């Protein structure tokens, strides 16, 4: 019922505007084209000035109002560079934005058609044109040079002591893998993927046996961290907005991004004045039905806290291949039965 009412009101409004428009056209025909034009010129000129005022007010007010809803200050070292270049660009573009818009709306108002005015025949001015070609070029060059300088720093090789974490995107969650005690990520093979081996680790490579696959990403504050980003199916994008980290996850082609976390989760809670704050990992490349819900929790902590957390993690191999049973007082047949089960399950696993 309400929707019918709303539809009715909308139709009424539309037909009112339509009737007014038809009437005003008849009026202007009677007045004559030139006179009607001159009459509406001043009104429209004023409306543009009004628009300009509302426009600038709106922009300044809404920027101030929504500033707190932007991302908080960068939680990574390189992110600070990104935010600074953003601000520099804003300064340059903001100035141009304001000046050109003032020129546009003021010109439109004061040069509106009026009795006795004649337009000024001004086809070109080479000096002026040279000036407003060269000055923008200089500003662009400054922005480019700054940007590229930091781009090389960000995309350069990670330090040798970086902690390497592999993250694999799939429809519709992320799988993290840490290297375990041997510090090496084992080889993987997509043909070996199964429900018991979700990234297809090659169990013949012993480096895999201690790799850990927790359900949360933990980083150490101040520790250079390199993410190796992969995908199991379609393209995803590894997006850590607070850290200014973003990189596509491409099936069959590992990509990387390295960064240094600046603030622990606790510190960020104080900065944002939000005791419930948590870092989150999102997917930023359209990947299917639940693209919007590929969340993984992220925590930044001290090295001690990290070591403790890591110590509590069991290697993935052990969670899918139960360990050989400990010898105990149990009857020999029971032990034999258990061993056989273990052996046979190991056999099936390696065929995968």
């Amino acid at each position: 019922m309400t929707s019918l009412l709303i539809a009715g009101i909308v139709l009424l409004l539309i037909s009112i505007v339509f009737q007014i428009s038809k009437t005003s056209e008849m009026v202007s025909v009677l007045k004559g084209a030139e006179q009607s034009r001159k009459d509406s010129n001043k009104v429209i000129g004023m409306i543009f000035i009004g628009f300009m005022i509302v426009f600038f007010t709106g922009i300044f007010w809404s920027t101030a109002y929504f500033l707190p809803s932007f991302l908080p200050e960068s939680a990574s070292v390189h992110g600070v560079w990104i935010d600074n270049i953003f601000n520099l660009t804003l300064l340059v573009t903001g100035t141009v934005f304001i000046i050109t818009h003032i020129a546009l709306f003021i010109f439109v108002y004061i040069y509106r058609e009026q009795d006795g005015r004649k337009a000024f025949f001004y086809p070109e001015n080479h000096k002026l044109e040279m000036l407003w070609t060269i000055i923008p070029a200089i500003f662009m060059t400054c922005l480019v040079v700054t940007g590229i300088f930091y781009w090389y720093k960000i995309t350069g090789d990670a330090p040798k002591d970086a902690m390497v974490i592999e993250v694999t995107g799939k429809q519709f969650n992320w799988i993290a893998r840490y290297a375990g005690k041997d510090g090496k990520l084992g080889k993987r093979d997509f043909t070996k993927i199964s429900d018991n081996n979700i990234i297809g680790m090659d169990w013949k490579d012993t480096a895999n046996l201690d790799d850990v696959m927790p359900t949360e990403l933990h980083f150490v504050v101040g520790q250079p961290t390199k993410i190796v980003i992969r995908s199991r199916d379609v393209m995803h994008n590894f997006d850590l907005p607070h850290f200014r980290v973003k990189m596509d996850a491409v099936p069959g082609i590992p990509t990387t991004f390295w960064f240094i976390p600046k603030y622990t989760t606790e510190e960020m809670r104080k900065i944002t004045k939000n005791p419930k704050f948590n870092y989150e990992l999102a997917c930023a490349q359209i990947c299917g039905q639940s693209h919007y819900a590929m969340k993984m929790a992220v925590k930044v902590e001290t090295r001690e806290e990290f070591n403790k957390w890591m110590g509590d993690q069991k290697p993935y191999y052990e969670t899918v291949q139960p360990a050989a049973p400990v010898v105990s007082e149990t009857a020999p047949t029971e032990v034999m039965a258990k061993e056989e089960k273990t052996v046979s399950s190991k056999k099936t696993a390696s065929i995968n």
Partner: protein
Amino acid sequence: MSHSESAHGHVDQEAIYHDAVWHEHNHHEHNIHDHHDTFFSKYVFSQDHKMIGKQFLVTGIFWAVIGGLLSALFRIQLGYPDEHFAFLHDLLGKWAPDGRIDPQFYLSLVTMHGTIMVFFVLTGGLSGTFSNYLIPLQVGARDMAAPLLNMFSYWMFVLSSIVMLASFFVASGPASAGWTVYPPLSALPEAVKGSGTGQTLWLLSIALFIFSSLLGGLNYITTILNLRTRGMGMTRLPLTIWAFFITAILGVLSFPVLLSCALLLIFDRSLGTSFYLNEIYIGGKAMVEQTGGSSILFQHLFWFLGHPEVYIVLLPAMGMVSEILSINSRKPIFGYKAMIGSMLAIGGLSFIVWAHHMFVSGMNPFVASIFVVLTLIIAVPSAVKVFNWLATLWRGNIRFTPAMLFAIGFVSLFISGGLTGLFLGNSTVDIELTKTYFVVAHFHIVMGVASFFGLFAGVYHWYPKMFGRFMNNTLGYVHFFITFVGSYLIFWPMHYQGLAGLPRWYYNHNSYETFSHLGDLSKFISTVAVIVFISQVFFLLNFFYSMYKGRKVLTKNPWEANTLEWTTSIDAPHGNWEGDIPTVHRWPYDYSKDEREFVSQDTPARPGEEMF
């Protein structure tokens, strides 16, 4: 072959080249009206460029309504994610069970909105309309160089449209991998439903669309180069023509790459190849037969068209805006040669900046940095154009026709949207902003809304020529102010959502604490979007009503403009000019030059007159 036997609505080929022959034919009682057009030859299978232009316009308007409707639907989901709307179920059936849009269909809505707006409305409906309508008239030709091929270009467009429309009705739904259709998502039906039959039809439709564009583009280029009338040197062409010319060259060079890109995708989907596929495990199986490819290759091929495509969308609007600003300021366009030069620079550079869409694709960072340099270079000619438009308005004597308002709005939108390009083109800053709503804000303002404003400006301005009647001014003003204010209210806040980190293509924002506070802003944007969409009815009413009941045009040159289209009779016949084609003696921008407020291009020079 006598006149009446040649295809109806077709201008005898030879006559195009020989004014004298045409003149003679007129003198022999065969006048054009003896061509006995049937309804079909006049309105349906016409080879007259004026009719073909109008056909593209009406088809473009049809698609614009659909594209806008799709955006209203997905904005309803974004603004009101937890509500159930009965009308959604009534309209969409199984795609909105219990009144909420299905998440996969949401992706279809977004995909089809982008596809329809970029290709069907702003390429077909913009270039197809105005290049076809204006080129022969403004260069002084009887018709296009190849009128039959021109007719085919329209009918290929219709065929492409039918296939795309059909894709809405297949059981597994229309394409849903984004308008950029990156594989593997677009290659594998198991990945998302729309990548089944829907994607196949999408690819077929786009292939047909590309053929249509190429046929059109070849005609535009050939006509502009070869069929200019006597005295119409290249530097006496209106800026509209230069814009259409450069646009056509961009299209002819870049659309074939999209075609090959799409063909390779078709092969991967149907013939077991793996140009784009590598190490995929999906649907419980590893795809062992299709490996070794690269989805990054797809991105390079796609964006090689994709970037020139955005200039194909924008340049015609720029050309028309230059023309309309000049005419209605009663002043020459400032810096005519610089305007040509800047369009050439933008056109040329547009071919070598494509990878700025790929900064976080995993591409080589050194190569990425080269694209940063080239991308920011493109900002310079764009800035020059803005300054030249401002200088055109300066000390003018401005007439506020609805067309002029849209042209002024275009300048504002191009400034706003263009400046945010400087953030995105700098790869370092792009890391943070790419794939967020900041990008959505940027391309909608600078390309979407701006080109729509160019389209509207062109329609309001050339409507009297096309239909012999004026559109209603008041409705035009209402349409302008609602759309101008509304567009800023819709897209400006999206910058804020981007700066809050909100990613694109999200069905809702509630899954993350990081983004869940943006719900009120989304609701605001959605509400305005629905209002602005509904308000386009003022344009539609005006457009169709005025065709029959609009104030009649009584003079040949109602806008008092200089270009040649205003020298033909009000209801221009096949062949455009009843007598000889005018000879051109000057450039199109002699406004307020001396005691004359305007001097049309076919007016001979006075002795001692300074000519440009």
